[in-house]
């Protein structure tokens, strides 16, 4: 498990929060404990809870990716399920039709999604944010239609079964897939955290806030927008390949527009532009439908209301709200000198 250096792991800056936001002093110990606990889930929980947790981890990877392009760089992506689909299908196709084992197949899935991210990013370089939304919207639809109609290769609407991944000969059990997903999820968060604390993250935020200022500080706008798209697409590809392995079956219905909107809802509800925001959003909005399952008639209605409610009432999302409450509720504690930052 990746050990964080001792010291504070403050959230990256939130979007335009007027009042002072103390970084939350979360030391590595509690993070380590969390990691161990997540990895214990497959041994404690039944296959249903394990599958829901797996979905949550996969959604965290996607929302962390969406957060990089949308939360930091301000590039709206309402077609992210397209990247997830590419990751899932490329991995499945390679594992089925070629002798590649799951690891290289996953890698190709991630790279393919990244390439798609760059291609979709191209028009975005010269267009206003609204056009980017349109391009990503069109991209999501196009990927779904291609998967639906390229029957000879993708099996069309019936989809494809994913061959069981083998790890040095013996089959990779559900637990193995779960642990791999957990490692991938923590790895993604680690990379996202590093990006947010590095010049890459600052350049992204600069592009979002004012392209002219960013450019005059030496940030090549076109290149960094493409990087933002590619990175968030690769996160999507990684999540897609893990979804393929985890669920054992892929078909186009799992990557429709509604799913892209759900990813965005998770980011907005959790808190765009923070590290923990998309995580909290992904967990809540993966578990909520499961808890609401018995009265499902209203699920679509409820998820629409949730997105609208957050957008209008809490645009900055849960995490920034809780951090500001926390700093207001416990002024003494929050003011104690945090150890020198990482």
């Amino acid at each position, binding site marked *: 498990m990746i050990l964080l250096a001792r010291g504070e792991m403050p959230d990256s800056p939130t979007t335009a929060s007027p009042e002072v936001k103390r970084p939350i002093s979360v030391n590595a110990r509690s993070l380590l404990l969390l990691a161990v606990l997540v990895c214990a889930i497959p041994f404690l929980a039944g296959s249903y809870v394990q599958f829901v947790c797996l979905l949550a981890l996969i959604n965290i990877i996607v929302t962390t990716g969406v957060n990089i392009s949308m939360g930091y760089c301000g590039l709206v992506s309402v077609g992210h399920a397209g990247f997830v689909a590419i990751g899932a299908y490329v991995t499945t196709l390679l594992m089925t039709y070629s002798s590649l084992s799951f690891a290289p197949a996953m890698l190709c899935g991630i790279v393919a999604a990244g390439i798609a991210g760059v291609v979709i990013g191209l028009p975005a370089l010269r267009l206003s944010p609204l056009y980017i939304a349109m391009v990503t919207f069109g991209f999501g639809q196009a990927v779904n239609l291609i998967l639906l109609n390229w029957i000879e290769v993708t099996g069309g609407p019936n989809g494809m079964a994913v061959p069981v991944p083998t790890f040095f000969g013996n089959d990779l059990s559900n637990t193995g897939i779960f642990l791999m997903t957990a490692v991938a999820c923590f790895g993604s968060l680690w990379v996202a955290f590093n990006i947010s604390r590095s010049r890459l993250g600052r350049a992204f935020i600069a592009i979002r806030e004012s392209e002219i200022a960013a450019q005059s500080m030496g940030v090549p706008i076109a290149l960094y927008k493409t990087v933002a798209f590619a990175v968030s697409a690769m996160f999507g590809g990684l999540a897609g390949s893990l979804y393929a392995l985890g669920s054992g079956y892929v078909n186009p219905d799992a990557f429709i527009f509604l799913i892209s909107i759900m990813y965005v809802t998770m980011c907005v509800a959790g808190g765009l532009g923070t590290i923990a925001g998309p995580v909290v959003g992904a967990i809540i909005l993966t578990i909520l439908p499961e808890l609401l399952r018995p009265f499902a008639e209203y699920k*679509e209605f409820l998820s629409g209301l949730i997105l*609208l409610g957050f957008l*209008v009432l809490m645009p900055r999302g849960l995490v920034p709200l809780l951090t500001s409450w926390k700093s207001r509720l416990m002024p003494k504690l929050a003011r104690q000198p945090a150890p020198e930052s990482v």
Partner: protein
Amino acid sequence: MLGQLVVSSLALGSIYALTALGFAIIYRASDVVNFAQGEMMMLGAMAALLLYRDLHLSYPVAFGCAVLISMAVAIVVERVAFRPLLHAPHFTVLLSTVAIAQVIRSGVRAFYGQELSSFPPAWSDAPIEVYGVRFTLLGVGIIATTALTLIIFLVLFARTNMGWAMRATAQNMRGAAIVGVSVPRVYSQTWAIAGGLAAVGGILLAPLIIITPDMGVIGNKGFIAAILGGFNSLGGAVMGGFILALMENLIGVYISSAFKDVIIFGCLIVVLLARPTGLWGTQKLKRV
């Protein structure tokens, strides 16, 4: 054959044009892409169905009332989903229209149930053949009504005081406010007109297809037409509607009907790369 394709694309083209126009006027006035445009069409069609088929009102009366209902809903949507987010980043508003679309769709489905119903056509749909090209009175009726609607809109937009205020706000919100234009009122008028256009499109579309809570998906076509034609040019958006319908027919027949949407998306990307503002759109100069 080609003649038949062109003629048969006119009816659907005019419906795409109405939707695209609805997108374009909201975008021009407030830089917002209204993803709930399709759902407003669906509401218009549902209201007309209720009035015309169930309450047996005459077609024009049902048509008018349904348009008014949709305009009212559009004003409410503007008030709930758009006004509070006036100063929020673009994508927040865009997402709120998506959320509203989802709420409307699932709300109507919960109320309306699973039933799929057909809308009795106002004009006969018996095919007529002239010089080897077949069309129906229904098609002619749709094109005529669309033309009438566009003319009314043009008069409203160009000649009246409200139209002037809308154009002023589109150019520069603060400038318009300074000279006394009540910008919030302009926004609700703009959304009301967009709602009205959507309703007209929805009601004209209804006899061609089956009315379900999910028929709002046609809004996506209007969206693509608006991008193709040029989002901030009203004439462009209307033209975009007809071009898209024609392209769908041509690609559908001569290339492949299954992949026609994918090919159209490809053309869209090429158009955006060549002219980032669509065929007739104009670039807003960004001042440093």
